[in-house]
């Protein structure tokens, strides 16, 4: 047996380099990119629509990239609501990555938007390993998923500074205390900000915009 060292690159560092290119592109075009992550059905799309509505009422221009394994359903929802939108299908992959987003940004009319939401594939695990180059990131977790979701997926919460605890209007119906999610998140991420939201009624939307520096 013979051991040798190989000067081989860190493959996740390469992802970071691609993300930095996206970050620079968005910054140069005066676009604030917001990455939105969360499990399937947590309410990412509805929350983006609620945030966009409030931003547009203030005169901002808003766009969205709808990341999904397949289909253009979320893209249609964004377009129907009047957002500049693009569909980004991953085929088989369970998360977006900076390379894919970089290609999407090449096609996207960045001059028409001041805020660009990039909605990740529904997944509370993998997206944390793949920075996209956004200026801020948001994880959406809904009370209907249970009050143990932060404990079950701790790593994504340690690395994300804004969390929306969504569907707060349903908390009582499903017997979940939202404060359990808030307490768990604060233990993991003392600098993070958790905001209670209900995308449908608009509760918490202004506070969430403030947490995202929008």
């Amino acid at each position, binding site marked *: 047996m013979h051991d040798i060292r*190989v000067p081989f690159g860190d493959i996740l560092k390469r992802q970071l380099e691609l993300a930095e290119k996206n970050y620079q592109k968005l910054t140069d075009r005066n676009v604030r990119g917001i990455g939105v992550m969360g499990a399937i059905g947590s309410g990412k799309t509805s929350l983006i629509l609620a945030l966009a509505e409030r931003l547009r009422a203030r005169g901002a221009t808003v766009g969205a990239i709808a990341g999904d394994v397949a289909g253009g359903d979320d893209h249609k929802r964004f377009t129907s609501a009047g957002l500049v939108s693009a569909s980004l299908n991953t085929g088989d992959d369970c998360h977006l990555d900076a390379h894919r987003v970089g290609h999407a940004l090449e096609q996207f009319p960045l001059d028409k938007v001041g805020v660009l939401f990039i909605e990740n594939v529904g997944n509370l695990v993998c997206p944390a390993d793949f920075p996209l180059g956004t200026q801020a990131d948001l994880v959406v977790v809904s009370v209907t998923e249970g009050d143990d979701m932060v404990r079950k997926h701790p*790593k994504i919460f340690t690395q994300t500074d804004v969390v929306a605890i969504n569907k707060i209007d349903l908390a009582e119906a499903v017997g979940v205390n939202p404060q359990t999610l808030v307490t768990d998140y604060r233990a993991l991420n003392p*600098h993070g900000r958790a905001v209670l939201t209900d995308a449908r009624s608009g509760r918490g939307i202004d506070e969430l915009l403030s947490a995202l520096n929008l």
Partner: protein
Amino acid sequence: MHEYSLAHALLQGLLDHLEAEPVQGTITQVQVRKGELVILSEEALCEAWRILVEGTPLAGSELSLERVPSRLSCASCGYDGPARYIGEESGWHMAIPVLACPRCGARVEVLAGKELAIVGLTLEMQDAPPSGAGPRAAPEPPADKPEAEAH
């Protein structure tokens, strides 16, 4: 869930590297450093590797993973060292590094814990003489030449 794509990226990178800088012998083990903040199943990564290397010059090789703990740097108080962990004793399912300064609580820069990189290879030298492979491989004295004759 992305173990196959990461295993593929590791493999493709290594194959490219070996094409540019070939090594002698058969690669039996590939050493990988994996940061503890990287979210992937080590078992699934090793299994993905076993499947993906079939039909390549790395067929039969195994991954050996070294887990790299988090290392944090604090600009506020100058701390440079490991993270504080929330552990199983406080009801969590695993020990989780908290990405805030363990000394003053400020925001930190993560210096280590997010890497995934091949750092070394173990080779089996096909043409090496049998006596050159170390003490365990030292040949037995020939049966027709008892040790007593050497004295």
